């Protein structure tokens, strides 16, 4: 509740603007703006040629296809990009074995855990064990003189000079030319704070090697974030990708909490993605039973009374609370603290089998609170088991408060921060009538006059992820390596898979409008247009007058103020940078 009050107060200016032309949601968008609007909202931004393609297919057919992504052939370019990202195709147990954490390596070294069976993983672990001591010495050694001496033994002075002050390309060439042995030596010689920049400067294949040598779990994270960017940029199933992002964020899980660094891959692919246009109840259950969520919100160790063990204190309400507040009914949904506790009691025993070995959902009846519960007025009789939790999912997924909460969030994401109540009410009714069919709810929204209104057009500020993806798409840039882009997005305030709070990122504009992020967007736009973002290749911006270049990136005329500001600029790449950093481009 506090959050909504806060967001509302920040967005007062926007509210006033929206309500002052109160009929804007009833005013129909002109035809050509409808096409752009569809691309703005249902894709990660138009690419050159997309407007013509939509005109050819017709809006209705195109939207219908996007609502049935299985009908759309997937991009071969995307498949090529995803192919080297090995970790995407492993299950959680395999990930834990192939990308062991430093703690696990230590356990193996101490004989507390077995060496992995896989020969590659086994060799990697052996190497890490052997090198751990050396690295600890480098880490503890703050002596610059000694570091210089170590580097001198490994690299030529010219190579050090290039790594010090060369361009990103030159640095990359130096690193790429190092033999594997040299690379290991260099990595071991550096203190950790210099190892990070080395990893960032390396070409993708070498970076992977460096990550596997130094911090294997980070290779999993790098694969995931890269894959998310590649899908957003290259997938033909654009709406599905946006919905994947929306629902992951709705059921947010933080990648850096314990075993969740290994669980996210499976979570996104199997709990979220298959259900984004399916039934809400299925989506909810898939998240409720996912090790990722069970671990993130601590339910895996929640126990009924008298079941507290040595390490666990008993009932843990975290999941129960977030289930009601964030996942289903919403903070004003009409439940009480008592309901939170009762829901938590129903989920006692919903746990993870062997969490450190990548096990799946496991219902532990011995931990289950067998007493009677009353959830939102419904009595769940004593003596139940795993079914108690299922009953809760039934109750909350059919609650009108949930239907309203989900509809409001979707409308905030796709229409406007303060969507008209008429629209949200219609979506709510469809949600209830269709038994929580999310495709039907989306259809209701995309069929609405409010969606196709002047009030909705450009009403949303792009998130950092959307801004970066849309800039890549608008310029038709070729992303050979997503690492820098993903770091860039983190710097703009939206680290991918790393939203610590269960709230996920906000769906409203205010979250993204702050000083350093705005400066960051402008600097990113200038760097991208000048082809200075490592890992991204951009054809030189074609010469032309400012208005033509602007039109090529905005797919519409720039606003008068933006036009006036860029009029006198000569260099095409600067014009392009200014346009992508303009207020116009921050909107969708």
């Amino acid at each position, binding site marked *: 509740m*506090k*959050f909504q009050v*806060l*967001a509302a107060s920040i967005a007062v*200016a*926007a509210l006033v603007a929206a309500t002052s032309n109160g009929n804007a949601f009833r005013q129909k968008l002109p035809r050509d703006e409808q096409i752009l609007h569809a691309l703005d909202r249902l894709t990660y931004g138009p690419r050159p040629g997309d407007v013509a393609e939509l005109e050819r297919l017709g809006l209705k057919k195109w939207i219908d296809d996007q609502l049935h992504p299985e009908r759309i052939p997937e991009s071969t370019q995307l498949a090529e990009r995803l192919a080297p990202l090995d970790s995407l195709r492993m299950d959680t147990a395999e990930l834990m074995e192939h990308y062991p954490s430093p*703690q696990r390596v230590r356990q193996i070294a101490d004989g507390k855990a077995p060496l992995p069976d896989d020969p590659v993983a086994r060799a990697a672990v052996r190497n890490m064990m052997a090198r751990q001591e050396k690295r600890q010495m480098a880490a*503890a050694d*703050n002596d*610059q*003189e000694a*570091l*210089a001496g170590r*580097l*001198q033994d490994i690299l030529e*002075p010219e190579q*050090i*000079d290039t790594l*010090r002050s060369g361009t990103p390309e030159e640095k990359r060439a130096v690193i790429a030319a190092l033999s594997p042995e040299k690379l290991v030596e260099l990595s071991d010689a550096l203190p950790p*704070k*210099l190892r990070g*920049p*080395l990893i960032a*400067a390396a070409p993708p294949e070498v970076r992977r090697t460096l990550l596997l040598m130094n911090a294997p779990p980070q290779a999993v994270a790098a694969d995931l974030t890269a894959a998310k960017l590649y899908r957003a940029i290259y997938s033909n199933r654009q709406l599905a990708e946006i919905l994947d992002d929306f629902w992951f964020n709705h059921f947010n899980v933080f990648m850096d*909490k314990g075993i969740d660094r290994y669980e996210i891959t499976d979570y996104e692919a199997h709990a979220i993605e298959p259900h984004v246009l399916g039934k809400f109840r299925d989506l909810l259950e898939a998240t409720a039973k996912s090790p990722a969520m069970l671990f993130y919100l601590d339910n895996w160790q929640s126990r009924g009374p008298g079941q507290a063990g040595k390490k666990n*204190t008993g009932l843990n309400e*975290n999941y129960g609370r977030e289930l009601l*507040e964030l996942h289903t009914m919403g*903070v004003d949904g009409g439940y009480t603290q008592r309901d939170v506790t009762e829901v938590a009691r129903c989920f006692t025993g919903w746990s993870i089998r062997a969490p450190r070995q990548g096990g799946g959902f496991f219902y532990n009846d011995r931990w289950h609170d067998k007493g009677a519960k009353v959830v939102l007025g419904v009595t769940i009789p004593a003596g139940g088991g795993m079914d108690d939790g299922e009953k809760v999912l039934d109750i909350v997924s059919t609650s009108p408060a949930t239907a309203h909460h989900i509809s409001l969030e979707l409308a905030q994401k796709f229409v406007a921060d303060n969507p008209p109540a008429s629209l949200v009410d219609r979506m709510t009714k469809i949600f209830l009538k269709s038994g929580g069919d999310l495709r039907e709810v989306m259809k209701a929204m995309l069929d609405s006059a409010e969606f196709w209104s002047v009030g909705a057009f450009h009403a949303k*500020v792009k998130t950092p992820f959307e801004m970066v993806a849309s800039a890549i798409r608008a310029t038709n840039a070729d992303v050979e390596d997503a690492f820098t882009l993903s770091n860039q997005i983190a*710097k703009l*305030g939206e*680290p991918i898979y790393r939203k*610590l*709070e*269960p*709230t996920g990122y906000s769906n409203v*504009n*205010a979250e993204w*409008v*702050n*000083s*350093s992020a*705005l*400066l960051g967007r*402008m*600097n990113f736009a*200038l*760097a991208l247009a000048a082809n200075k973002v490592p890992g991204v290749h951009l054809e030189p911006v074609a010469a032309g007058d400012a208005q033509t270049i602007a039109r090529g990136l905005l797919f519409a005329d720039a*606003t008068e*103020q*933006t036009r006036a*500001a860029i009029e006198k*600029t000569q260099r095409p790449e*600067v014009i392009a*940078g*200014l346009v992508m*950093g*303009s*207020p116009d481009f921050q909107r969708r």
Partner: protein
Amino acid sequence: MHTRRAFLKNSSIAMFGLGLAPAWLSRAAYARESSTPSRKKILVAVFQRGAADGLNVVVPFGDPNYYALRPTIAIPRPDGTAAAALDLDGYFGLHPSLAPLMPVFQAGQLAIVEAVGSPDPTRSHFDAQDYMESGTPGVKATADGWLNRTLAPEQRPSPVRAVSIGSGLARALRGPNEAVSMGNIGDFQIRDAGSEQTFEAMYGNSVDTVLHGTAQETFEAVKLMQSVQKQKYVPAGGARYPGGQFGQAMLQVARLIKANVGVEVAFADVGGWDTHVNEVGAKPTEGQLANRLAEFGQALAAFYQDMGDQMADIVVVTMSEFGRTARENGDRGTDHGHANVMFAMGGDIHGGKVYGDWPGLASERLYEGRDLALTTDFRDVLGECVTKHLSGRTVAEVFPGYNQPRFRGLL
């Protein structure tokens, strides 16, 4: 003429662009700029991420159980040598690597609070940091942070009234009041000067109500920073900030405060405290904890020295999400625990004293049989700093739901 050795040394320091940016400025130049020096009070919050081992930071050498619980990693009783605790009050002693802070303690400007922390039982770094920064233990949905809530609404606030040093805006600083994050003062700019003016014109004239206002504040802050960026900065009083990230963060904070650009609250963090293994090396002044403490102590002491008389208007307060187990583990380290220690430094602080009720380390006094028990809520310490040092906010406003703070008399 550089020798090859010197060349290599400099190269490696500056390698990958991580070198220090030597842009310092004499105090006189600032004084000229700030003809009307404001006497606003400033609060600097420092977060030690990873759960610092309070029991080895401020050592309860008077508690016999301490040595029984930590046969291999305890810090020896004060004996005047460089490898022993530094006596504070006959019962507690500072870790020897914190020696730079001893003069501050002796000058009565450093107070220590023992057995303090968050009452929430979680031992998850992630949850505990979140709770400590939101200022609402046990409540996950709080969107804004306690440090943001300390700011009172103002007609024309300084664009840099609230600054978090680092790549993102700290959780503690999120919220309705304007707050900026700066990785480095030098980076807070549009990298192409010509484009900066164009962007400013573009956004300045924009009818986009959401972007226009923030952009205006941003460019105000950028301009403000330009004047700071132009001037070289030389820390006063011979202060030497350590080279690591935290030392440099404290230097940025000092530079901003001295530039007199309206900073009211600042946030910096320092990681590396999660000492499960090899916490203490062959000597107490070696190992992971000693390394972290050396940087921590040097940075705070340098800041103190650099700020000089201006410390009268500044309070620096430190925290960490929870403490560590009273007993050492089998790896010369400690695991996640409960209560911890906090420092408060500044001219307003009644320092030279260890505050708090010491629960003792007898096994029946330990929290859940393993950790130092909590006798002071971290909100008592922060609340006291906020209400007595800054003005305008009550404890209930900054820490919603926390209505009966027990101040320890630190200020």
